[in-house]
């Protein structure tokens, strides 16, 4: 079976700083993969390379059989199939919630107004925010904004969803709502690649957990193994810092 994502020998440098030092990594259709690791380990850069928001320095990225790193690929067309949710939500502040979820359907997929609105409302309902359709992003809480951002990505009917630390900018009491939406999405069979610090979510929802450090993948396996019984010293020390209550400042 074709991989949903297939990454081979991926390198990325910013100037003289090498952030990704040769990543090989696949995601199977329907899989939920959580990427964990200390800040600066390159996990967000890896995620941003999957839809080419960062141009890799070397290596190949293949999504749904399309090689995005190929020179002749239509990157705009390829990105339609990959939804992305950002740490800072990045909703369009000059549009209402409904317009946020409709705009790319209309302008990119050329859907008719009625169809785009129907799909937008369906997806807002999916994240539990149908009553906020007429609001502007600034009138919503962070958690609500992030759920709108998820609905906006889902409205494009993606086959793969990327989450870049989706709960890191949220107040602690708002994290749960966003994770609930993501958990539901995972149960529906969506292929998901999630960069996160939420260890409980990774342990519970992920099919695979990938631990990155220093621009390489250190450990890759089911959550029970990577989080429950890590083999590498670097994974153990990271998890100790994250999970130990006396080090909750991470």
């Amino acid at each position: 079976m074709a991989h949903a994502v297939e990454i081979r020998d991926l390198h990325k440098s910013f100037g003289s700083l090498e952030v990704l030092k040769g990543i090989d990594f696949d995601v199977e259709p329907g899989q939920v993969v959580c990427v964990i690791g200390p800040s600066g380990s390159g996990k967000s850069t890896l995620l941003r390379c999957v839809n080419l928001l960062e141009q890799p320095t070397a290596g190949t990225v293949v999504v749904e059989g399309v090689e995005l790193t190929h020179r002749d690929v239509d990157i705009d067309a390829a990105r339609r199939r990959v939804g992305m949710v950002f740490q800072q939500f990045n909703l369009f502040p000059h549009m209402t919630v409904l317009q946020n979820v409709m705009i790319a359907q209309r302008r990119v997929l050329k859907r008719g107004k009625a169809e785009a609105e129907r799909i937008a409302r369906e997806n807002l309902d999916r994240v539990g925010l149908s009553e906020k359709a007429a609001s502007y992003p600034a009138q919503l809480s962070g958690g609500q904004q992030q759920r709108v951002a998820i609905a906006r990505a889902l409205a494009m009917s993606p086959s793969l969803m990327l989450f870049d630390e989706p709960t890191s900018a949220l107040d602690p009491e708002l994290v749960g709502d966003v994770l609930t939406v993501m958990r539901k999405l995972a149960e529906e069979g969506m292929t998901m690649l999630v960069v996160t610090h939420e260890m409980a979510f990774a342990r519970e929802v992920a099919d695979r957990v990938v631990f990155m450090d220093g621009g390489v993948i250190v450990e890759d396996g089911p959550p029970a193994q990577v989080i429950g019984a890590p083999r590498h010293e670097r994974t153990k020390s990271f998890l100790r810092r994250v999970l130990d209550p006396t080090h909750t400042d991470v």
Partner: protein
Amino acid sequence: MSDQPKLTEPLPSPAGAVPGGAGLSPRQRQTISRGVQYVIFVVLVALVVSLADWAAIREHFLDMKVAENLFPEIFTVALKNTVIYTISGYVLGFFLGLLVALMRLSSAAPNRWVALVYIEVFRGLPAVLVFILLGLAVPTAFPGIRFPFDEYGVVAIALGLVSAAYMAETIRAGLQAVPKGQMEAARSLGMSYSRAMITVVIPQALRIVIPPLTNELILLFKDSSLVFAIGVTSATSELTKFGQDIATEYADSTPLLLAGATYLLITIPLGIVVRRLEARQAKAR
């Protein structure tokens, strides 16, 4: 202070405080300073009033007989033309400025160079020189050329060229003030660079630069007076030229004063609008 005799270091005093005023509290010092400012102001006003020749002013600046000759043409011709020149120049300048701003931020280096040269040239040239070049030099250099709408076309293009340079820099600042994540979110939804610019980035940037762009409208309104440099007929004259012509005819300055008042009739309300817009933005931040 007297109960702290050990404190020998003098306290840092505000700039301009006299050593003899050390016994005054900051509030007393402020009261004295303000009083001095009022006295200076009153003396200056009294000086101007006493030195002015009021009889001459009444005769040369407030002559009602001369003033009568200005109406209604000061509004129906002069103000109307001023508004037409300003708006046509502004619209042209806005779209050209937006184009130059986008070129300035282009990833293609030649675009950036062209934009930069344009901005430097038209910001550096006196506007009156651009009028003369366009109105007199261009027809000489290209004998076949005719501007659309005659004087109106020349003025619109001249004002447009000059204001575009200023507006380009303002709009560029606005575009750069939109967070990078907006472009990334739009691109991640499959929008092309230009689609994302048009749908997401430019609308937000323009909202940011509405106050400075309205300011530019005020400046342009006044710059339209430079049309005298290309010589206009009485039918196409604007406020300044109109006032000047009648002032010469009657050897009286009343028309100039009235023309000035008519400018203020437009610029002061616009100024109030700008301040309102700025206040609203400051609150929204």
